[in-house]
């Protein structure tokens, strides 16, 4: 396992090197001068001065070295559009995306498992076909369209949910981590907590469809495994109650493939989060990065994209490692 971990660390270093080099080159290939873009009336002397301050007149290898090392020191420069430090903007937007993605993941896993179990043991045709329907919907319905349909139904027709946004800003932003659900709970402000939950419902339902379909598919396939059925029979013969069989043995055994499938698809989930944020005007990293790319906000692009790429890679590998830890069979292999 230690060998596995060191291999993953080496891979992480390789990804960091490749991704940072690609992004650095991409930014250098952008036509035009980023500093002139920043100034309303670019004066050549002032432009030259700022270029020297930012190190843009240094040789390219030196510039790359500065970028690569400053990324870990969290010195990400200022946004060319807002003028604010990139790190400050990221700390604002990143928790919003993470909160949305994690909530969707949690709901997706829960719904996926519940539907798979219901379709496996139900005698009714509707429940039995539910897993097939969920799988088909997860693969074929575009998430951005689903979000718009949720707005039409949930906000326009029923009037139950807000059209967009993260929470009711008239309540005041709570101090803390930027994870508003958590901050609301910690500060004892039930109104903020409920407002965040209210705003979170539609985006989470929308984003959770894909992980729910994936988890349901994997779980359903595993439930048909004859080895698993034999184990259930053996445990039942041993005198264990259904709750003990399920919660102490089977769910634990089925955890590894779920972690693997969720981990390997985390990138797709992040992609879905970008679309969901656009539909629901969610102030997260996805929208922030898309705007940065379209506006050629180079320091945001360089550091924001590198951060998200590294995060996606880390989660995939963390899931792989976790699956290895909880699955003795894979460990032996």
């Amino acid at each position, binding site marked *: 396992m230690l060998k596995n971990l060191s291999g993953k660390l080496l891979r992480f270093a390789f990804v960091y090197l490749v991704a940072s080099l690609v992004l650095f080159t991409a930014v250098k290939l*952008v036509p035009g001068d980023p500093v002139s873009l920043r100034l309303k009336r670019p004066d050549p002397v002032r432009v030259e001065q700022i270029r020297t301050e930012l190190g843009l007149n240094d040789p390219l290898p030196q510039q790359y070295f500065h970028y690569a090392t400053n990324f870990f020191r969290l010195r990400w420069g200022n946004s060319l559009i807002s003028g604010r430090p990139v790190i400050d903007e990221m700390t604002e937007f990143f928790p919003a995306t993470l909160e949305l993605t994690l909530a969707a993941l949690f709901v997706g896993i829960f719904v996926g498992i519940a539907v798979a179990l219901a379709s496996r043991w139900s005698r009714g045709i509707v429940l039995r076909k539910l897993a097939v329907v969920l799988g088909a919907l997860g693969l074929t*319905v575009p998430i*951005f369209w689903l979000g718009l349909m949720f707005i039409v139904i949930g906000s326009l027709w029923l009037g139950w949910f807000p059209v967009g946004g993260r929470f009711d800003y008239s309540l005041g932003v709570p101090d803390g981590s930027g994870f508003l659900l958590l901050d609301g709970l910690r500060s004892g402000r039930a109104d903020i907590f409920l407002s965040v939950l209210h705003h979170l419902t539609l985006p989470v339902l929308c984003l959770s469809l894909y992980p729910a379909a994936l988890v349901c598919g994997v779980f359903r396939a595993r439930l048909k495994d004859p080895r698993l059925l034999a184990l259930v029979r053996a445990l039942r013969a041993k005198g264990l109650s259904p709750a003990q069989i399920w919660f102490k043995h089977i769910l634990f055994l089925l955890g590894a493939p779920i972690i693997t499938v969720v981990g390997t698809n985390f990138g797709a989930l*992040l992609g879905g989060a970008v679309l969901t944020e656009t539909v629901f005007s969610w102030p997260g990293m996805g929208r922030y990065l898309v705007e940065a790319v379209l506006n050629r906000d180079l320091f945001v692009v360089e550091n924001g994209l590198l951060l998200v*790429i590294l995060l996606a890679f880390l989660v995939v590998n963390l899931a792989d490692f976790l699956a290895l830890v909880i699955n003795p069979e894979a460990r032996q292999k």
Partner: protein
Amino acid sequence: MKFSKTIELSVFGVIALAFLGIFFTPYDPHEQAFREIAFAGSSGQHWFGIDGLGRDFGSRLWRGSGNTVAMACAAMLLNLALSSLLLSVEQGGPSWASRIVRLTIGLWVAVPVILISLVLLVFLKPSPGSLVLAAALGTVPFSFRQMRIHWLEQRNALYVQASKVLGADRRHLLTYALWPNLKPDLVGLLKLVFAICVLDLSGLAFLGLIGDPDFPELGAILRQNQAYLFRSPALVIWPGLILSALLLLVHSSSSTTASKSSR
């Protein structure tokens, strides 16, 4: 007629119909010829109504479907070319090249298509061509892995060994032994890649990364009409329904191909 045959014919029919929209539509999808009846519902003359800028919405949907399908086909072919190239390097090249390809694919798989397209769009102009490139590159790890599985499965099969023992040369082996057995799997894979490309392309267009906001593509049409969601929901419902129906058909066809080849 068998179910699988019906599905195949439906997919072919739908894609042919969509392609037709590139060359022919009842009205010009760009011309704002009906501004005085903007947001009008469906009628005998305008089956899908009129959009907010006074254009025949049916014509825009038809042209949009054609453009989406054409872009997805281009992305699929580019993806096939790239994946085949990488597979041939991995299988036939020196061991260091094989290792580099495997390592690169292993890392590439973690990066979502949207991020790949954002990196590309840092230095490329947002355009349909850039999106095609992004969708093709984004699906390479998936298609490479699938192709590799199928290739290894067939390459080590007994009938290939038997052909080798009987003295078949490389060309004969590839044409008469391997290709007929690889074909169904590859066709199924291509359909799946096509469906993924449709979804990715329309998602990227929805984000506004296609450049021209007026370009009729299903995702871009959805983005353009998002502002009219409350005023005229049909303008948002139709493009998504068409996309979902197309994806459902292609996925069903891909599953029937896969089940046929596994038999």
